[in-house]
């Protein structure tokens, strides 16, 4: 068995005196979609930000492609091929769509622009438009497109469906499938457990800063504990 692309072990993260993650363990295999489920405030975004180097880890290891990346500066982690479409999108709202994508490309440049725009046709119509004037769904697509500009091997998606209309959510999840088909592994954080479990290979449930349950997604889908807590009471 090959080593996982991303491996998180015994990860502790604290904000000031308060510890938020208490020893998280999680692997993302090459080519997989891994979903982390959990309700508000259990530490999902903290986990994602720590992997991207925004927050510091108090204890534990994060290994990406065999290299330890815990507490590495955020820009170096991006350069290694780990990109994130973060919570709240964090796009550059005063700059146009093209400039947002150029920034996403960083030192890799614009080699990926055509390929990325082919996946997001709506963005190619809006290249000169200010990113802040896009609709919520378009902003989310820009955020994902920007993260793909460096041709990452691992893409972190933090709540990509948050605040979007059901039709747009379906489009976003369809996109996630296509991104994986291009060979990008994905770590997905979602409150929409049903949609996430449909697309993921593997899933983990985060509660109060600990992974309380993890396994293949189809198994979790049938797990009564998941059904009750996250799927509205009945398994599919």
């Amino acid at each position, binding site marked *: 068995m090959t080593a996982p692309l991303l491996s998180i072990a015994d990860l502790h993260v604290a904000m000031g005196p308060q510890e938020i993650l208490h020893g998280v363990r999680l692997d993302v295999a090459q080519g997989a979609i891994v979903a982390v489920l959990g309700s508000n405030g259990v530490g999902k975004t903290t986990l994602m930000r720590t992997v991207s180097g925004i927050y510091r880890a108090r204890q534990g290891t994060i290994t990406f492609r065999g290299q330890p990346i815990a507490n590495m*500066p*955020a*820009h170096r982690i*991006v350069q290694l091929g780990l*990109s994130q479409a*973060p919570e709240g999108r*964090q796009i550059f709202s*005063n700059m146009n769509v093209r400039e947002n994508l150029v920034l996403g490309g*960083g030192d890799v440049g614009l080699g990926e622009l055509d390929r990325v725009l082919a996946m997001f046709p709506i963005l190619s119509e809006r290249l000169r438009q200010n990113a802040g004037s896009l609709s919520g769904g378009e902003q989310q697509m820009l955020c994902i497109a920007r993260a793909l500009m*460096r041709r990452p091997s691992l893409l972190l998606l933090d709540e990509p469906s948050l605040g979007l209309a059901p039709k747009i959510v379906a489009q976003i999840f369809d996109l996630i499938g296509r991104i994986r088909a291009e060979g990008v592994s994905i770590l997905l954080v979602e409150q929409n457990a049903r949609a996430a479990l449909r697309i993921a290979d593997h899933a983990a449930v985060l509660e109060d800063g600990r992974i309380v349950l993890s396994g293949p997604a189809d198994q979790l889908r049938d797990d009564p504990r998941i059904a009750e807590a996250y799927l509205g009471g009945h398994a599919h």
Partner: protein
Amino acid sequence: MFDPYYLQQLAIGLSLGMTYALMAIGFTLIFGVLNVVNFAHGEIYTLGAFAGLVLISATAPPIVAVILGALAIGALAGFSLERIAFKPFRRFTDEASLKSRAMRESTLLSSLAVSIVVREALEIVFGSQMRSVPFEYLINTPVRVGPVILVTGDFIIFGVAAAMLIGLQYLLTRTRVGLAIRAVSNNPLGAKYVGIDTDRTIITTFVVGSMMGAAAGILMGLYYGAVFPAMGFTPGIKAFVAMVMGGLSSIPGAVICALILGISESMATTFVSSGWSDMVAYGFLILTLIFFPNGLFGARRERV
């Protein structure tokens, strides 16, 4: 019917406004990125002037070398200023800390502290009296344009201000460094997610902005023929007023307001004694804050 006197006052006002603009560009650039007022910008201006003066008295180099020397000192001063007065207070981790007013207020005071230390240090080393620039370096040869008399410095200052403005617009819209500066200014957290080294980008901004401040200082020294430790104070205030009037983070807005300020001051001396002309700037500041709280050009809130 049009008195040439007013044309002359207009010309004087324009050149005065240009000198304010030189200062306001760097000031606004730094504000746009960090959203903090850099009170030490006036001292960077003074340091630029003194660097030029020291070079002139030591080796009497060609004027280009004097300006390059001032730029180098400006770059060094900008770098040190950022490390000493801004970096220790910066913690970009999440939205909450970015919006925190603590950082803004602490750097307000730390940059003020640096400005006081630099000014006092210059007074200890050079004395507080004015030092005159050797005659052959002055840029005040009169030039007659129709009914108006200008000096060579007016053209040089106009040229330098225009070059700075155009160069900066080019930098900000066409180069990778400039895009990174705008990205950090727009969304520092987002900048981290796309792999921008935010620390380095902020240092770059300080270096560029401070080089502009130092260039303004040496040009003013050569223009007025005098260099002294407190020389940065008044232009600093005027640049601040121009920045606020221009909407805080619009560089073209700050330049236009600097010109309005210069012309108004020069016209005002027609009616009141010149000692009162500073009142024009403060009057404008108060009127702007009352009637245009977002500045004259700040409606869109486009930063940098």
